């Protein structure tokens, strides 16, 4: 006598533990992995907050990587509570020991008035464009949607920022602001790959916008064609999720640092000199800020810019790409950033060296005392930019 659907359902109900939507809602944060086993089109209409999505037809193939621990608590749900029962049998057959099915499914969850999320739905073209991201469990469509809603600000449209902007744009960071007031010069093209020969004399923000949108029209480029100064820094950086610092002066760097710390915006910092680069990520109050690292700027002769000292074009390229990597982790909330670590790159040795950075408990910008003082409207005094002059001026030159 062949078994019917009713028989199979009865067996599944007898085998699988069922929990109510309220039971699931009452689970502590991370109390169980909640998996939505419906089809893509159903998921896109809305789902439980924090749920993973594995269509029932992919459960066997995908659940082991989503839930490696077979003793971890797992709750499955579908639209009405039937498909999740059968999917739960599959998990038990795979050796999962703590599987439940949510009775009544997403319909009952919604009718109980419990909260649910509607995911950002990627267009067919976006699904194809970002398919290599969508395949990575740490990114997926939720991470890609997060990138598309993210805003990154890049300071300077030069050598560091060129590869950073290209990769952020390619990755689908939805809004990229660019602060620059310069025009493209022939001497830029040895490293500033955002620009091209036929754009010499063109405003850099416009040249950058053309390159970025030619690569990815999803990206909105916001040009800030002005010099970053004390009067405009708060207005310019407001609303951005991460800042890529490609500045070339200490005045701008300290200005940016102080404003970003006050607004709690992470800054991915890099600087270059000939064959060397330095890189770190400043996450306010989690790690040190630029003033913790260098409380005062060096005298100009000890820190000449690239226009004086020169730089191997690929060095800002490499450092800029590492900045993009840091910014993407900040935006996605994955991995470990370089907060509290300074990476030195030496192109001649092809060596990376890591140094430990610490917060300065007396920092005039990010210390507890500085935060309290700002909140009371009387910020701590900050040392002036006037750098002490070296007694014997440094003469640039020699073997490098």
């Amino acid at each position, binding site marked *: 006598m062949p078994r019917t659907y009713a028989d199979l359902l009865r067996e599944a109900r007898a085998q699988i533990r069922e929990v109510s939507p309220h039971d699931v809602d009452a689970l502590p944060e991370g109390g169980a992995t909640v998996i939505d086993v419906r089809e893509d089109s159903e998921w896109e209409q809305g789902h439980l907050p924090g749920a993973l999505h594995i269509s029932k037809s992919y459960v066997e193939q995908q659940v082991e990587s989503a839930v490696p621990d077979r003793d971890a608590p797992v709750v499955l749900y579908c639209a009405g509570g039937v498909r999740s029962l059968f999917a739960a049998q599959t998990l038990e057959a795979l050796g999962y020991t703590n599987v439940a099915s949510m009775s009544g499914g997403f319909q009952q969850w919604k009718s109980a008035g419990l909260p649910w999320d509607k995911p950002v739905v990627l267009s067919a073209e976006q699904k194809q464009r970002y398919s290599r991201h969508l395949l990575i469990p740490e990114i997926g469509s939720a991470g890609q949607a997060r990138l598309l809603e993210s805003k990154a600000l890049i300071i*300077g449209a*030069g*050598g*560091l920022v060129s590869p950073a902007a290209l990769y952020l744009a390619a990755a689908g960071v939805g809004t990229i602001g660019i602060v620059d007031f*310069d025009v493209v*010069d022939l*001497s*830029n093209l040895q*490293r*500033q790959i955002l620009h091209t020969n036929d754009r010499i004399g063109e405003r850099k923000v416009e040249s950058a916008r053309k390159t970025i949108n030619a690569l990815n029209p999803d990206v909105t480029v916001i040009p800030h064609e002005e010099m970053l100064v004390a009067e405009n820094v708060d207005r310019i950086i407001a609303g951005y999720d991460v800042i890529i610092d*490609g*500045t*070339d*002066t*200490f005045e701008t760097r300290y200005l940016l640092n102080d404003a970003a710390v006050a607004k709690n915006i992470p800054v991915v910092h890099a*600087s*270059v*000199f*000939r*064959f*060397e*680069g*330095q890189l770190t990520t400043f996450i306010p109050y989690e790690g040190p800020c630029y003033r913790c*690292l*260098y*409380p*005062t*700027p*060096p*005298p100009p002769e*000890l*820190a*000449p*810019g*690239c*226009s004086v*000292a020169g*730089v191997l074009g690929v060095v*800002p390229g490499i450092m800029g790409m590492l900045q993009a990597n840091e910014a993407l982790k900040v935006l996605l909330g994955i991995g470990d950033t370089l907060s509290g670590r300074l990476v*030195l790159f030496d192109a001649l040795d092809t060596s990376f*060296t*890591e*140094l*430990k*950075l*610490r917060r*300065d408990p007396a920092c005039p910008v990010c210390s507890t005392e500085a935060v309290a003082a700002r909140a009371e409207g009387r910020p701590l005094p900050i040392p002036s930019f006037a*750098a*002490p002059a*070296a*007694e*014997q001026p*440094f*003469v*640039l*030159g*020699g*073997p*490098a």
Partner: protein
Amino acid sequence: MSVVKIPTVLRPQVGGNKEVELAGATVGEVVDALTAAYPGLKSQLLTVDGELNRFVNVYVNGQDVRYLDGLATAIAERDEVRLLPAMAGGAKP
């Protein structure tokens, strides 16, 4: 002897060397040995009061000496001492 790593910007002051080997039981002694051998470095590394300039960081085996014992930080044989001034660039013109 400890190895002192010299950043590019200071190399002209030490005959173009990328690193120099110096004796000294503390960071201060190593810095003294360095500035004795290469007097041009003194004003770049130290204030008139003999303290480390705040724009030059000194690391011993990757740790900032400001959070160890400053110039009194002990140096063991083969420790790596790294001088690191702030860098300007930015690859803008």
